[in-house]
C-alpha cells in the first residue's frame, strides 16, 4: 500500500473545485464548497468526515443524485475517465448519458442496505434488472448472472437465495446483495458510503475482507466514505479529510496517520481510543482522551476564516481572517492550515 506510486498512476476520476449548494428557507447551505481531489485507477480513496462535513453530498454529486431543487451544482467539474479512457465532465452530461454511467461505470452502495433494496422484489430480480438495463441480456441470462454474482460475493446457496426477498436475509447478507448488485456491471468506480456502519464488527470484518478481495479481482477503484478511522487505516491507499464542506487534508494513508498536518486530523486521531493499546489497567491512573471541544459548525453559518478555527487549540488571530489555501506540504500531502509548517518542524524536532 505504501509503495503505491501515486504520481505515476492513471487518474480515473478528478473532482475540481466542486461546489454543491442547497437553497433553503434559512439561506444557502454550502454543503460542498470548492472540493478538489482525484482517484487513481485501482486505488481506494477514503473520504473522512463527520456529519455535515459534506462527504456524502460529494459522493451524491458524483452520481448526480442531488435533488435539484433545492440542490444545485454551483461550480466546478467532475471529470470521469471511465473504462474507455474518454474523459467527460459528469456535471455537464445529459440525464440520459448519466444513466448510462450510473450503475454501469460508477456504482454505489449505501449504509443501510434495507432501505436501498426494494422489499417487494426478490434479490435476483433486483440484480437482474441492472444487468438487463446495462448489458443487453435477456431475463434468463440476467438471472443466471445474478446467481453468479451472489456466489461471487460469498452468499451460501446462491441458487436458493436468488429467489428470496430482502427481509429473508440478515444485515450482512443484504450488504453482500448490495455489493453483488453494484458489481454486476463491472464498474470502474465503486462509491461506498459508510457501507459497514450499520453492521456488527464481525460482519464488518467479513464485508471489508470481501471488498478487498473483489477489488483485487476486478481492479476497480473504491471511493470509501466513512467516519471510522480504523476502517480507513485498513482499507485506504490515500485519504481525504473533509470539514465544513472543504477538504482540509489529503495524503497517503500512512502520512495522514503518522504525520498529520491539519489540527482537525490530529484531533480526530487523538480523540479515539486505540483497541488494545489504550485498555485501562486497574491500579494505574486513568488515561484521558484528547477531545475536540465544541460542536460541528452550522453549515448555514460557517466561520469567516478557517472553519475549524473556533475548535482549534492552535488557532491564532490570523486563522479567522481568510479561508486558508490547501497547500502542498510535500509529496502530494496537502493541508489547509496556515500553521502546517510549524507542525512539520515540530515533528522533525521529535524525530531528530
Amino acid at each position, binding site marked *: 500500500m505504501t509503495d503505491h506510486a501515486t504520481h505515476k498512476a492513471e487518474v480515473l476520476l478528478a473532482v475540481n473545485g466542486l461546489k454543491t449548494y442547497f437553497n433553503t428557507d434559512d439561506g444557502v447551505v454550502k454543503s460542498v464548497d470548492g472540493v478538489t481531489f482525484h482517484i487513481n485507477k485501482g486505488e481506494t480513496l477514503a473520504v473522512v468526515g463527520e456529519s455535515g462535513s459534506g462527504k456524502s453530498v460529494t459522493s451524491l454529486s458524483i452520481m448526480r443524485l442531488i435533488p435539484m431543487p433545492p440542490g444545485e451544482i454551483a461550480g466546478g467539474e467532475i471529470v470521469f475517465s471511465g473504462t474507455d479512457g474518454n474523459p467527460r465532465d459528469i456535471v455537464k452530461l445529459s440525464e440520459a448519458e448519466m444513466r448510462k454511467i450510473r450503475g454501469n461505470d460508477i456504482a454505489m452502495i449505501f449504509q443501510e442496505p434495507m432501505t436501498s433494496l426494494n422489499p417487494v422484489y426478490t434479490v435476483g430480480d433486483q440484480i437482474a434488472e441492472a444487468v438487463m438495463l446495462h448489458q443487453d441480456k435477456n431475463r434468463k441470462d440476467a438471472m443466471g448472472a445474478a446467481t453468479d454474482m451472489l456466489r461471487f460475493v460469498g452468499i451460501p446457496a446462491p441458487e436458493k437465495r436468488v429467489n428470496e426477498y430482502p427481509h429473508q436475509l440478515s444485515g450482512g*447478507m443484504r450488504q453482500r446483495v448490495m455489493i453483488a448488485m453494484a458489481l454486476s456491471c463491472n464498474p470502474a468506480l465503486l462509491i461506498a458510503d459508510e457501507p459497514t456502519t450499520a453492521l456488527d*464488527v464481525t460482519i464488518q470484518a467479513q464485508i471489508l*475482507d470481501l471488498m478487498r478481495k473483489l477489488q483485487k479481482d476486478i481492479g476497480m477503484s473504491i471511493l470509501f466514505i466513512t467516519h471510522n478511522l*480504523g476502517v480507513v*487505516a485498513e482499507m485506504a491507499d490515500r485519504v481525504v479529510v473533509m470539514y465544513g464542506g472543504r477538504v482540509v487534508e489529503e495524503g497517503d494513508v*500512512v502520512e495522514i*496517520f503518522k504525520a498529520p498536518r491539519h489540527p482537525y486530523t490530529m484531533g480526530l486521531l487523538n480523540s479515539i*481510543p*486505540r*483497541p488494545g493499546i489504550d485498555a485501562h489497567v486497574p491500579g494505574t491512573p486513568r488515561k484521558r482522551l484528547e477531545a475536540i471541544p465544541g460542536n460541528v459548525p452550522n453549515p448555514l453559518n460557517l466561520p469567516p476564516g478557517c472553519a475549524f478555527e473556533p475548535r482549534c487549540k492552535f488557532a491564532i488571530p490570523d486563522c479567522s481572517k481568510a479561508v486558508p489555501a490547501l497547500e502542498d506540504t510535500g509529496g502530494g500531502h496537502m493541508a489547509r492550515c496556515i500553521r502546517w509548517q510549524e507542525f512539520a518542524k515540530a515533528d522533525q524536532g521529535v524525530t531528530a
Partner: protein
Amino acid sequence: MTAPAVARTSAADSRGMTQKGETLLEVKNLEKYFPIRGGLLSRVVGNVKAVNDISFTLARGEVVGLVGESGSGKTTAGRAILRLIEPTGGEVIFNGTDVTKLSKGQMRDYRREMQIIFQDPFASLNPRMTVSDIIGEAMQIHNLNPGKGRIDRIAELLQKVGLRPEHMRRYPHEFSGGQRQRIGIARALAVDPLFIVADEPVSALDVSIQAQVVNLLQDLQEELGLTVLFIAHDLAVVEYICDRIIVMYLGRIMEIAPSHELNNNPKHPYTEALLSAAPVPDPTIKRQRIILEGDIPSPINPPSGCVFRTRCRYAIDDCANIVPELREVAPQHYKACIRDDIL
C-alpha cells in the same frame, strides 16, 4: 466541585450504603424470554431467549463493560436489571435486596438509586419539555430539592455536565447530539443514583464529540463514585473506560475478565474473534484477522450445547452436547468454554 461530592458520600452513608469495593449489584441466573405466540388460539409456541441464565457481580465504584453484537442480549440484560422490562427468571440483588421481588411502589424507591443513559439522544428526550422539566421530573417524583432549591440543583447539574444554567429554559431541539447526551446524563444524575446503566451512550455521536462524552462520563464516575454498567459494541471504548468486561453472545456470557487481561489474553474463541475483527486506526499494523463465518444464529432456536459452536473454529463434537458453564480460569477471569487446550 469537591463539596457536593463529600455531601453526597455522607448522604449515601445515611442511606446505609456499602463501602467501595463491596458488591453493590449481583445478577443471578437472570433470564428474559420473550414468548412467541402463534396459531388460532395465540398460544405460546416458542421463546426468544434474549437473556439466558447470566450471572455476574458489580463492586461499588466499578465500571464494567457489557459487550456483544446485535442480538447478544446486552441491551435486554441492562433493562431487565433495572426492571424497565420484567425479567422472566433469576435475581437482581441490589445493595442486599432482590429488586425482582419488589412491588411497583417499592421499586420506585430503588429507581432513585438505579438510573439509565440511553443511546439515542434524539429519541430519549421529550421534545415538548424544557431542559429544566426533563431534569427536574425525577426530582419531583422522588420529592427531592423542593422549591427554589430544585432550580439551583438543575443549574448545578447542567454545569457539571458542561452546559450552562441558562440552557434550562430551552427545548431539546435547540441542542446538538452531544449536548443532548449531556442533558440525558444530567437527568440520570438528578436523583443522586449509586448505579447507572449506560446503554451505548456514545454510539450515536460524531467521532470528535464521542471523546467529550467519554471524558465527561469518566470524570463524573470518579467524582461521584458511581457504579456503571457500560453497554457497548465498540470494544476500544469499553476497554478504555472499564475496569472489567463481560462478553455476551446470543443471550449468554462467554467471558468475563479485567479489561487489559481480556485484551491481551482472551480465553474464549468468540472474544478472540471479536478482538481481531475490530479495525485498528494504524495503517502500519497489519493484523492476522479471524473472520467468523456466517451470522449470529436465531435466538428462537439457538444451537444446542455452546451457542457459539456453529461459528467457532475450535468446535469439537462435545461442544454440541455440553452447555459450558462460566468458570474461573485465572484470577478474576471467567470463561464459558469446555476446551482448555486452546488460547
